[in-house]
């Protein structure tokens, strides 16, 4: 065949394929854990501690037990057979906490589960909860991390040596000497207050025990079904063939559904004991008081630089308010240690030193939250960079340009030991800055009197798709570096791709289908992505840490590629041609320029059902399972630019423009990437301007409803410009970099810098987020008082 018809195979990777999950989710046909109704199902309500730190003297459950409709009332003694939840670490001198599924003897935060009540309805369960009387003897509290870190402070866990559960130091070069010798330094004390991830769907669990088969299934709104399966399997001594965890549709997590929760263990155990399905749906107040929380760090940092603005040294002291228990499996080191790890950012900083401590406080445990550690690190560092810029009178973007790692310097090892592979640090900065007219903004800033206008830039780099060589959480002794894809063509010719991932808003049903479709030569809608079910999936842990596209997508690429080879081999036998002549595309298998053509259902029929067409040895099972482990990780970089306007009289702050340029390698689906950026930025706006969990001096949460814990609504989120930058692709099967978290990493710092720029003329600095009009008012008042005194 000399003049074969040119064939252009449709491209799916890189195109904005409409989300395959949308018709289901947008028409209310999704099935979430709370939608599950099972015969004989009973309902769980939980009596939670109303004390931050107290000894349990007694629990009177008599009245509750007597209430008609109540099936059982359980306290710690009823769970004596379940070991405490402990998150071990390989970190030297790390003190792991013991967390009983129901508080035993002592409660350590307001919201901690104390009594579990099962009744025929949630209403009755809550009526019974109101009848339970827990007698507490209050213990002393040290609510603030700094206070709790004092060796003399009341100890939250008697069996531990101190509230400080770990201390870790990082050092590269000779930071102290470099600081002393440097021409300039800027310092600051930065704080990100506590937050919680607040997904639309609260946590919900239903456990069902098939008594006949002795199989227990937990349907749960989790993004780590594999981790939950292994953990509860160990606690309840159940093998993975007798215990399954299924994540059905999950309405967001943002980290909050990424840890093991006592409630998951409780419903699983009670479903077996009661031989009835047990359901628990957290209400919003429970989400705000017992869902995992995040941030709560204080960072004291100094950046040294020469007169040309070249960074020389960075020193940071990080105090993490980790809450009452170290969360499973990530440990209490998850957030604070990564603040230190990511502190050097995307810059060349030869000398680095950091000390990080994690302190137990009588507050809900902290856990993963979109961006983990990086939002704090980037906020602190990018504020310092802006302070350095203003000290030297160099434009902030220019100072960044001088210090960002250049293309020819990759791979670059940061002072904390993270290695950046090639990513478009400079390219992202340049792209973001050219999307805003910085000169015009400067002119407007000077001209306008009705509004204070401010512009803020933030650049960052993050490690995504982390492989088996690195712990996703520092010191965590669990390999989360691999995922497996099983891609199968069944006897109807339909394609299924099975993963242990658990999409909860990432569009994996679309993006993974795009990858498989492209490699295999079918259309995305021909591929059913099956995920979130440990009974069906090969080994894997779930969806978190910006890993699914890189690791899951890598496994999908490998498996679908290998399956395409099989398909071509079978077809070649059928057509009597060489396998290399066979192509696939659009659901067909063919030899270009000939009339050899067959579709997938027909090929499947010939392989599985037909008894004669193909020789027996050619009837290969059309199924491939492949695992991908990137070993290390790959770098995603980005620059955010925010423009804010502040009403000088009311201090109402509005975001006028937000530009994000990111290099996430090859885009699987630009629309999905933009959606992830938009969502991440919205979350970052909450971090910067609104969200704060507050506790009083007794450790009582005072932001326990959504009237007090303010999350951004669509009115607070401006249109976001996303600029895709694609530099050299990373060395992984698909050329993908993770990007699910990035929006939340850059936006807080960019917005903080923009607000700081807008109020700089008042001598006010932005060192703590969120920065609200109320706080700005106090800062401005303090600054003018000080000016008055001088």
């Amino acid at each position, binding site marked *: 065949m000399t003049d074969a018809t040119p064939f252009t195979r449709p491209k799916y990777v890189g195109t904005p394929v409409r989300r395959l999950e949308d018709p289901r989710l947008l028409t209310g046909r999704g099935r979430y854990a709370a939608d599950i109704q099972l015969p004989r199902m009973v309902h769980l309500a939980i009596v939670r501690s109303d004390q931050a730190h107290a000894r349990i003297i007694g629990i009177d459950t008599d009245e509750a037990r007597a209430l008609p409709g109540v099936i059982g009332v359980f306290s710690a003694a009823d769970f004596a057979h379940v070991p405490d939840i402990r998150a071990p670490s390989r970190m030297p001198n790390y003190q792991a906490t013991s967390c009983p599924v129901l508080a035993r003897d002592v409660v350590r935060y307001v919201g901690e589960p104390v009594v579990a009540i099962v009744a025929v309805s*949630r*209403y009755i369960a*809550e*009526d019974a*909860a*109101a009848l339970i009387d827990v007698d507490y003897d209050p213990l002393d509290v040290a609510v603030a991390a700094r206070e709790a870190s004092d060796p003399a402070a009341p100890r939250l866990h008697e069996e531990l040596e101190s509230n400080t559960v770990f201390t870790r130091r990082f050092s590269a070069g000779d930071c102290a000497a470099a600081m002393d010798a440097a021409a300039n330094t800027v310092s600051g004390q930065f704080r990100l207050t506590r937050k919680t991830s607040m997904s639309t769907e609260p946590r919900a669990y239903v456990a069902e025990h098939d008594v006949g088969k002795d199989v227990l299934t937990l349907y749960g709104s989790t993004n780590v079904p594999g981790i939950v399966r292994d953990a509860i399997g160990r606690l309840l001594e159940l093998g993975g063939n007798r215990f399954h965890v299924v994540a059905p549709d999950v309405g967001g997590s943002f980290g909050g559904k990424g840890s093991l929760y006592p409630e998951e263990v409780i419903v699983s155990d009670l479903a077996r004991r009661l031989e009835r399905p047990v359901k628990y749906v957290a*209400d*919003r*107040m429970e989400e705000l008081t017992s869902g995992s929380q995040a941030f709560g760090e204080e960072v004291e940092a100094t950046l040294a630089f020469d007169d040309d603005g070249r960074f020389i040294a960075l020193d940071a002291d990080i105090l993490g308010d980790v809450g009452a228990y170290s969360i499973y499996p990530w440990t209490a080191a998850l957030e604070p240690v990564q603040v230190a790890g990511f502190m050097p950012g995307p810059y060349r900083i030869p000398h680095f030193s950091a000390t990080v401590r994690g302190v137990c406080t009588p507050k809900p445990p902290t856990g993963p939250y979109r961006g983990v550690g990086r939002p704090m690190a980037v906020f602190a560092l990018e504020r310092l960079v802006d302070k350095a810029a203003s000290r030297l009178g160099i434009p902030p973007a220019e100072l960044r340009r001088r210090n960002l790692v250049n293309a020819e310097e990759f791979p670059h090892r940061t002072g904390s030991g993270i290695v950046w592979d090639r990513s478009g640090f400079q390219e992202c900065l340049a792209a973001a800055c050219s999307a805003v007219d910085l000169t015009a903004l400067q002119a407007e800033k000077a001209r306008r009197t009705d509004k204070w206008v401010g512009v803020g830039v933030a650049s960052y780099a993050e490690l995504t798709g982390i492989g088996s060589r690195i712990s996703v959480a520092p010191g965590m002794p669990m390999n989360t570096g691999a995922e497996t894809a099983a891609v199968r063509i069944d006897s109807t010719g339909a394609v299924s791709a099975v993963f242990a991932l658990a999409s909860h808003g990432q569009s994996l049903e679309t993006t993974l289908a795009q990858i498989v479709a492209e490699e295999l030569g079918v259309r995305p809608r021909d591929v059913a992505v099956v995920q979130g079910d440990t009974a069906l999936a090969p080994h894997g842990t779930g969806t978190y840490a910006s890993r699914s596209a890189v690791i899951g997508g890598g496994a999908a690429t490998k498996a679908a590629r290998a399956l395409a080879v099989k398909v071509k081999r079978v077809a070649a036998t059928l057509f009597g041609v060489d396998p290399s002549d066979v192509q696939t595309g659009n659901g067909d298998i063919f030899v270009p320029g000939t009339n050899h053509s067959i579709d997938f259902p027909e090929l499947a029929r010939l392989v599985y059902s037909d008894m004669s067409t193909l020789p027996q040895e050619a009837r290969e099972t059309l199924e491939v399972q492949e695992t991908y482990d990137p070993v290390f990780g790959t770098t995603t970089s980005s620059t955010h630019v925010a423009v804010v306007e502040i009403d000088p*009289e*009311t*201090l*109402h702050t509005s975001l006028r423009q937000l530009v994000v340029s990111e290099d996430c390698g090859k885009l699987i689906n630009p629309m999905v990437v933009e959606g992830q950026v938009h969502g991440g930025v919205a979350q970052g706006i909450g971090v910067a301007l*609104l969200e704060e969990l*507050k506790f009083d001096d007794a450790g009582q949460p*005072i*932001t326990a*409803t959504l*009237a*007090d814990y*303010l999350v*951004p*609504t669509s*009115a*607070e989120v401006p249109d976001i410009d996303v600029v895709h930058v694609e530099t050299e692709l990373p060395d992984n099967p698909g050329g993908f970099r993770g990007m699910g978290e990035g929006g939340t990493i850059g936006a807080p710092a960019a917005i903080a810098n923009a607000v700081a720029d807008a109020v700089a003329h008042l001598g006010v600095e932005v060192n703590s987020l969120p920065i*609200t*009009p*109320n706080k700005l*008012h*106090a800062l401005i*008042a303090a600054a003018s008082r000080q000016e008055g005194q001088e």
Partner: protein
Amino acid sequence: MMKPVAFEYVRPETLAEAVTALDHDDARIIAGGQSLLPMMNFRLVQPERLVDINRITELERIERTKTGLRIGALTRHANAARDPLLAEHFPIVAEAMGHVAHVAIRNRGTVAGSLCHADPSAEWPLLVTLLDGEIEILGSDGHRSAEPSEFFLAPLVTDIEEQELVTGVHLPLPAGPSGMAFEEVAQRAGDFAVVAAGAMVRVENDTFAEVRLGLGGVFDTSVRARALEGALTGQRARAEELEAALPLAIEDLEPNDDLHASADYRLSLVPVLARRALIRALHRATQ
């Protein structure tokens, strides 16, 4: 806790039936349910009987009276915002409704529900205070009415008895052509006001014939800035005069101080919003 305790549910079809249904030890009216249900779900209130007045359609009307407009108790915020009579005589209502919560809540929430809930930051109590409204109340002893200053006693506390119901509010028409304006600062779009200000200005012969300024969110209840109003009446109708009177806007009361806004921040907003509202009202009055 997000489930209410069990309650009896009654849905009268007429006002008379409603009055009978309310003759109970522990009955509570439900109108839009937008404030009551959250409180019931938190078990902050646990009424034994809920009296649902949503079927009493006569309470939904907005009508002209000899001296003003009568707004039925069940008028939804959204309907008030698009009512032609209100738009003609009290355009400030639609302006204020834009600040009340979100579309879904405005479609359910009612005028009387807001008045009876008596949140110090809510828009309706402020509007009724500003516009010298009269709150119409029905009980087993018949009808009575209350002025805003008698009706709103404290945050979430009103003068209404458990067996009574609000049937509507009467807004007297201003004595002549007027300008009105509404200003608000809230944390997010749709949040309860940190501070809100409503102004009404009447100008005759280039002088202020009448100036009214109402403030919400600052104190226990919505208030009128009587000192400022008195000082401006009779003055030349100029922005400078308004400006000069602004320090009088702050009443000698204890300002609210909470999680979202300190007393200082609130007080700093009072002259700002007062000026903006008064100046816009003056413009409208002289157009």
